[in-house]
């Protein structure tokens, strides 16, 4: 039995249950007068139906298919996690300190994650940040986020 399908079924069921309940709150209406909750309600019901089909399929095929699949082995998932974490921090500090410093720090972190040496990493981040800033601000005339702290 493919454990990944089981987990996805549970996630889908949970999400669609939430959507279905909120849709009832919005008001479903009926076929001749659909209201705001109509579309999300029926879509989430369909999700429940198809998740159950997926679930039963997985259950029936449990001998035929390879069993447990460990998605976290043979990979350095810590690296992806770190990159994702760095990006999340970035979104929160970007509006505060502005594009140049925030993106500079992010790029430095990402280059270091790719095990670059510190000096080339610093230079590469500076170059990337300044070039992109220049391109957007002066050639394309689209201002990148300014921080509330600096300018």
């Amino acid at each position, binding site marked *: 039995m493919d454990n990944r399908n089981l987990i996805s079924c549970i996630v889908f069921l949970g999400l669609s249950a939430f959507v279905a309940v909120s849709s009832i709150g919005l008001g479903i209406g009926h076929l001749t007068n659909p209201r705001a909750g109509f579309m999300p309600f029926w879509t989430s019901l369909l*999700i429940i139906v198809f998740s159950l089909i997926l679930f039963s399929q997985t259950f029936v095929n449990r001998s035929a298919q390879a069993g447990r699949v460990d998605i976290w082995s043979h990979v350095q998932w810590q690296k*992806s996690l770190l990159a*994702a974490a760095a*990006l999340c921090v970035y979104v929160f500090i970007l509006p505060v300190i502005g594009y140049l410093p925030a993106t500079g720090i992010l*790029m430095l972190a990402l280059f270091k994650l790719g095990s670059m040496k510190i000096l080339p990493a610093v230079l590469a981040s500076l170059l990337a940040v300044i070039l*992109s800033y220049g391109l957007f601000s002066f050639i394309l005339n689209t201002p990148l*986020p300014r921080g509330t702290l600096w300018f």
Partner: protein
Amino acid sequence: MDALNGLFYGLSVAFELHNLLLLLAGCLLGTLVGVLPGLGPVGAISILLPLTFQLPPAGAIIMLAGIYNGAMYGGSTTSILINVPGEAASAVTCLDGYAMARHGQAGQALGIAVFGSFIAGTVGLIGLQLIGGPLSVLALKFGPPEYFAIILMGFTFIVYLAQGSMIKAVLMALAGIILSLIGLDPITSEQRFTFGNIHLFEGIGVVPLAIGLFGLAEVFANLEKTAPARVLKVRIRNMFPSRSQWLQAKWAIARGTVIGFFMGILPGGGPVLSTFMAYGVEKRVSKHPEKFGHGAIEGVAAPESANNAAASTSFIPLMTLGIPPNVVLAVLFGAFMIHGVTPGPLLMTQHPEIFWGVIASMYLGNVILLILNLPLIPLWVQVLRIPDKILYPLIVLFCLLGAYSINNSVFDIGVMILFGVVGYLLNKFDFEAAPMILGFVLGPMFEVNLRRSLLMSQGSFAIFVERPIALVALIICIILIILPIYQTIRKKRSYVKQ
């Protein structure tokens, strides 16, 4: 003025030195912004709008149209090279374009995209010139019931987008619909799943979603590989499509062109839907559908031709009715107005120099873009030679800038990152992102046209079968659903007999 004389007159306008220079500048700039994900032609045209105030109207509009066409050519570049779709219309190109790049065929993929764009763009222009008027009348016949039927047809193409499990593809499309419903209800303005956040009032954007699901997710997947990813570094053999690849792609280009041609005229999501349809049709008629998603050249040629044909024909409603069918042409519409020219049925008689000048310059622009883009291909392919540790952070930067520059919104960056993580998990759990994009694009159109139809008919479903275009589309729809089911049953039967 008949079409041929008009064209000659238009060429005489387009070949005036200052117009030629403006066209060249437009094409160059369009290519630049097309390559940058996100920003795209809307941003570029609105930025240049004030600069064109001093220009004569014909020159200004020629330049802005050049930007639009240039951006359409450049749109597929990042999809193919780094799996980052610059706009919703090139999301499908990621599937086979990026797969081709991983097999060392980035040059061929880019090449077929450029040639397909050129052919489709030119055919679209011929259509605009010859049958623009009648076609626009046909387009107006599309009311809510007709749209509903066409969109329903669009949903059946999920079947052809799925590479693995069909059930999972359907689940993804449904999830896409749910995501697309976030925001204010299109009929009653009630808030749905917005959690009171004003950034969610207008829903989440398709470009941040697509960039996250495709581009950023791919970066995450590559970061965690223990063995250094050498797949991309397969020797890049030929820069241009070979003879056999041409033969494979020629009908894909033709079919993509026809689909894009008609879908482009429809106001609304025509071009995006046309790319999904073109891809689905190719996979349906192909003798080797299993190759799709693993670098089938038809999977690049068809959608790229479709979106360029659609880009050309989307000028039809603008020039003949004064109705811009998409956001880019709405900006262009603004440009017409600011220069004191009203696009519409009177354009051809009141401002022939603009009507024919713009059409002629678009023919010319297609040639310029072909000449401009071909030498760029070897240059783009060099991008893949950049070492991973430098390339991946730069792709991330690209994704960030792309997501930000659509609406100048940091919130969109957050959305992009969130869906980068979601896309990464989806890969892990063996789900595909493409059907989700399809559901996301079609969901709101489906709902609003269904509800508008029912409002118009006061709740009667007869409206869908009383109107001929809607009825035909619904019948095609039913055939499209039943045919694959029938075929699988027959296959199973013959299997059992054996």
